[in-house]
């Protein structure tokens, strides 16, 4: 393997940006430049193995280390991971099979409530014997179970709507998500299954099965310090798994069948593709991703209620897929990462900065207009209050100037 300038450049960038975060743990810009290192790795002209190794170093070593400097970064990474897995799932349904799904969050809710009900005392309300909460050891079996439950509900939703396309299907999926939310909201009587709008808490966290091992090595770590790292690695594991599944499916006859259905259903059927089966499979796989992440979300939040699963969440994930580039796995990852960082860091960071500027009473002198004291800006003009507006503007501009998304599907070289 030849080590070229590109290799050195990438490594230098990663090193420099991590050093920046170390030096300025509170700086949003420093962390952004570190996050960008993954993009740099993706686009660098180095071979696949090097990319994988560098990516592994960043995600497995550097990010957790930086997380110990500023714990908020781990929280961001976990959120990003959750949305990446969601976007990858929706990308299969919308991007590959071409079924516009406006109610994707329903499957996320199903997964979350699955663990929330049985991983908390909630299930005692309708199952006698005081068996609940299940011990945290059940978290991983439930993660597996949620994949099955998600796939099943995804396929069940598919059955009645298979003949629908485009706008009609979109309306049905929208209705489905609202039905799920209404059910969750109202199933506190006559039998209390979901505890209604009050939500469910406390939900069991994943088991710390490795704690005896740590103690064996003489490390006594407080679980509350350990959990963010633990969740980060679980999310990372799920994301890697979903990327692998999505990628392998895309390059198989199943993925090709999905895209053929997206492009022309009649031609696809005439070329020997069982359209109904393939659509159901696509819906099931997408839903299973969302449902698995839902279980993790419930365990991480400890408390969930129906408010976490509104229509806006579905639209948010859809926007990630569209911004990134429909039908493209790197696109879905980038879209989810970008939008989450925008929401959690950029806009909040900007508003914080403007706030300090305002309170400092900086005076701007604009030619012709005269002096302008920033402290006179009313509090209503905080950028954080306009999060959605900025987000909407980005969507409008993207659709006008780059409708195919940031990283649209590429023509792959043949075998």
């Amino acid at each position, binding site marked *: 393997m030849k080590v070229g300038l590109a290799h050195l450049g990438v490594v230098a960038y990663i090193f420099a940006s991590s050093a920046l975060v170390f030096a300025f743990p509170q700086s949003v810009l420093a962390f952004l430049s570190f996050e960008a290192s993954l993009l740099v790795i993706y686009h660098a002209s180095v071979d696949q193995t090097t990319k994988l190794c560098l990516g592994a170093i960043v995600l497995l070593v550097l990010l957790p280390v930086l997380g110990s400097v500023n714990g908020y970064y781990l929280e961001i990474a976990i959120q990003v991971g959750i949305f990446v897995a969601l976007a990858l799932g929706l990308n299969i349904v919308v991007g590959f099979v071409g079924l516009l799904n406006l109610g994707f969050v329903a499957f996320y809710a199903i997964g979350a409530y699955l663990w929330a009900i049985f991983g908390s005392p909630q299930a005692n309300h309708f199952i006698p014997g005081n068996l609940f909460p299940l011990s945290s050891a059940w978290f991983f079996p439930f993660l597996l179970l949620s994949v099955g439950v998600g796939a099943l509900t995804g396929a069940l939703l598919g059955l009645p709507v298979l003949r629908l396309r485009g706008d009609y299907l979109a309306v049905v999926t929208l209705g489905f998500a609202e039905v799920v939310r209404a059910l969750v909201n109202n199933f506190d009587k006559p039998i209390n299954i979901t505890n209604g709008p009050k939500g469910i808490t406390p939900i069991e966290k994943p088991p710390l099965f490795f704690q005896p091992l740590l103690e064996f090595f003489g490390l006594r770590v407080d679980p509350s310090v350990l959990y963010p790292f633990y969740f980060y690695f679980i999310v990372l594991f799920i994301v890697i798994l979903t990327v692998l599944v999505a990628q392998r499916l895309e390059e198989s006859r199943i993925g090709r069948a999905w895209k*053929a259905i997206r492009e022309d259903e*009649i031609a696809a059927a005439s070329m*020997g593709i069982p359209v109904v089966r393939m659509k159901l499979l696509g819906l099931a796989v997408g839903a299973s991703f969302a449902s698995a992440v839902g279980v993790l979300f419930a365990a991480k939040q400890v408390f969930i209620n129906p408010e976490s699963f509104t229509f806006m969440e579905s639209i948010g994930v859809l926007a990630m897929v569209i911004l990134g580039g429909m039908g493209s796995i790197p696109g879905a990852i980038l879209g989810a990462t970008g939008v989450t960082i925008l929401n959690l860091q950029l806009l909040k960071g900007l508003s914080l900065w403007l706030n300090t500027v305002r309170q400092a009473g900086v005076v701007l002198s604009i030619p012709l207009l005269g002096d302008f004291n920033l402290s006179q800006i009313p509090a209503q003009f905080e950028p954080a209050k306009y999060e959605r507006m900025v987000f909407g503007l980005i969507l409008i501009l993207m659709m006008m100037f780059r409708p195919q998304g940031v990283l649209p599907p590429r023509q792959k070289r043949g075998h």
Partner: protein
Amino acid sequence: MALLELRGISKRFGGLQALNRVDLTVEDGMIAALIGPNGAGKTTLFHTLTGIYRPDEGEIRFIGRSLVGLKPDKITGAGISRTFQNIRLFARMTVLENILVGMHCRMSTSLWGILLQSRGVHRQEKEAARKAMELVELAGLRGKENEWAHQLSYGEQRRLEIARALAATPKVLLLDEPTAGMNTSEAQSLMMLFKDLIGRYVQALLLIEHNMRVVMGISHRVYVLDYGEKIAEGHPDEVRRDLRVIEAYLGRGTWVGDAQS
């Protein structure tokens, strides 16, 4: 031996009798042509044959089994594939992927095999890619296998559609106006290609043509449809002289003098 046999196929759309008791036979090694004026029901017959429509009456038999009521993908699986009058490629897929889609029903990789990347999946994918490249070559699209289908020129798209249909390894290939929009010499060279397909890639061809002259040279039997009814069948020379065929194409009123010569 009759590969494909249609007996008394009828199809109505509301008050319109699109097909009326049509009989048609395609035999092994044969190039059969289906001709007729616009709106005669040629494409409807193809749609009925490939399972997009279900016939109201009649029987379709293919190597001894009935195809009536089967879904399009099952009919392709049984060994009949087709092209479309208005090209229906998968636009945002590459040339190679388009052809690979055609092989879907000839591959048997399962969901689990794909997720675990089993050895069988690797072998099948490699084999499929090799065969697909062969068909790329046949369609004269070498070097363009990684381009999006919608980037191809019109003629290339027509040929890609034929290659895609061949990828399903059909016994009978149905071609719906394959020469539409081509000039006579292009059409003639395509017809020569079709002749070569028989025995090598398919056992028989059934093609719809609008232009009578193109099919006369290569077809063994011609069926003529008009207003959903079969008005003539037989050897091209017989059909050409058939009074009802001439009427259907030219109309009775405009026919003056000795048009048969």
